[in-house]
């Protein structure tokens, strides 16, 4: 078939070529021109396209670079992402921990709130208590003020009473002094005149009469002694106590040596221990020793021998001195009368005396803030003790 078509076509073509030989040449020129223009255009376009292509190629390259970079960046991001996920996981754990801690803290806070409330309550209670205490304190203070006031009043009263007592005491002392003085005069007269009767008119009286007069003389003499003792005793109340350190060994030696014994009298045997020094009024304490030692001698009279033991011992802040004899002693049943004024535990016939000696001892020791006491067994002897403040060095 193709051979037919081509032959027909060559014939057609030869006809057309002949038909169009004149027209076709012009048209061809135009067409060629057109085609040349179009060709030029297409060449421009191709150049442009080449440029554009180059541009695109560049852009492509750029994009590929960029893509590579992006891949790297992507990888980096992926890594970072992973990291962040790890971190996130850690944070989640930490968060949980924190949440737990938070919960704990909230619990603790709740507990604290309760504790706080409790404290607030306690505080309130304490404030109440403080207020109560403050009131109680004020009351106490008022009470104290009252007591102080009462105390002051009491003290004032004591001062007043003491002054009254002192004044009464002074009056009593001056009374006893003047009474003793005034009593002495008539007794002196009774004694003196009786003596005159015996001396001047003794011849006119019988033995009984003389004996009676002698009784008057003895009794008035005795009364004189009592008055003297009373005076001496009241003088003790007035006498100022002048305290100094007493060398007791010396004092007792002096007292011992001052005793005068008559020819027919027995010389006592003295056993004197070490006597520490003490504080006291020397002349008054000397009187204490005289009275105690002479008592020891007097009450040993009916014994075979007279043995006077003198000693001392320390007791706290005091020195206790003692005088011991082996004499008549006394019945401890009557001990409370022993140191009383004009109290006697022996009859006048048995042992003479007025009963002032121990009262004086008692008063002197008392005025020294000391103590005096005694122990005795009837018929075996007595021991008298007195204490004085020791000398501190």
């Amino acid at each position, binding site marked *: 078939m193709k051979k037919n078509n081509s032959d027909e076509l060559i014939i057609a073509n030869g006809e057309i070529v002949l038909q169009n030989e004149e027209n076709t040449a012009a048209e061809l020129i135009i067409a060629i021109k057109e085609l040349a223009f179009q060709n030029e255009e297409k060449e421009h376009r191709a150049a442009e396209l080449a440029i554009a292509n180059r541009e695109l190629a560049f852009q492509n390259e750029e994009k590929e670079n960029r893509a590579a970079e992006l891949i790297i960046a992507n990888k980096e991001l992926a890594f970072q992402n992973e990291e962040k996920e790890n971190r996130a996981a850690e944070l989640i754990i930490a968060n949980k921990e924190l949440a737990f801690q938070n919960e704990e803290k909230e619990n603790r806070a709740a507990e604290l709130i309760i504790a706080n409330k409790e404290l607030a309550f306690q505080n309130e209670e304490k404030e109440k208590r403080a207020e109560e205490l403050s009131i109680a304190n004020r009351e106490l203070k008022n009470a104290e003020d009252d007591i102080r006031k009462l105390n002051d009043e009491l003290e004032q009263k004591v001062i007043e009473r003491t002054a009254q007592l002192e004044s009464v005491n002074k009056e009593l002392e001056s009374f006893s002094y003047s009474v*003793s003085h005034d009593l002495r005069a*008539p007794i002196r007269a009774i004694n003196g005149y009786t003596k*005159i009767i015996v001396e001047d008119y003794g011849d006119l009286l019988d033995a009984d009469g003389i004996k009676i007069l002698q009784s008057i003389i003895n009794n008035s003499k005795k009364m004189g002694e009592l008055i003297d003792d009373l005076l001496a005793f009241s003088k003790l109340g007035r006498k100022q106590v002048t305290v100094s350190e007493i060398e007791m060994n010396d004092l007792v030696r002096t007292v011992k040596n001052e005793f005068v014994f008559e020819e027919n009298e027995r010389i006592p045997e003295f056993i004197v221990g070490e006597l520490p020094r003490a504080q006291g009024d020397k002349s008054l304490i000397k009187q204490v020793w005289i009275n105690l030692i002479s008592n020891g001698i007097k009450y040993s009279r009916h014994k075979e021998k007279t043995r006077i033991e003198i000693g001392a011992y320390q007791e706290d802040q005091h020195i206790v001195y003692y005088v011991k004899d082996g004499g008549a002693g006394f019945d401890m049943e009557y001990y409370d009368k022993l140191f009383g004024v004009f109290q006697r535990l022996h009859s006048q016939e048995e042992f003479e005396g007025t009963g002032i000696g121990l009262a004086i001892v008692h008063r002197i020791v008392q005025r020294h803030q000391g103590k005096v006491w005694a122990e005795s067994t009837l018929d075996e002897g007595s021991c008298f003790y007195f204490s004085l403040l020791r000398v501190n060095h």
Partner: protein
Amino acid sequence: MSYHNIEILFVEDSADDAALTIRALKKGGVTNKLQHVINGAQALDFLYCKGDFAARSNKEFPKLILLDLKMPKISGVQVLEKIKSDPNLKAIPVVMLTSSNEGPDIEKCFSLGANSYIVKPVDSDNFFKAVKEIGLYWMVLSQSAH
């Protein structure tokens, strides 16, 4: 009554004490002429030749004054004070007579210049003895005192 040559001035308000003292002095051999006055005012009248004693010579002074301490009105202390502050009288020995040695006036008497004091003892033996000794002492042993 003669006030001449009085050797002892005896001032005592108690009649009994005076009688016993005078007897004791006599029995003790003190026979010196004695003037007894019964209070301090009379004692001063005697010494200054006034009142009852205006007629007495003021040239004569006693050799001894026995002066009771306790007397009404003018006491022995006041009389003593007067005597010892007078230049004409102060050389006369003064012996104070007291009822006891417990009196507060004893020291004062000595500070005023009393020469001695005796306690009037109740016991007459002692009393006589004391007065006798005092009297003899001042009258016999202290002749040169005045």
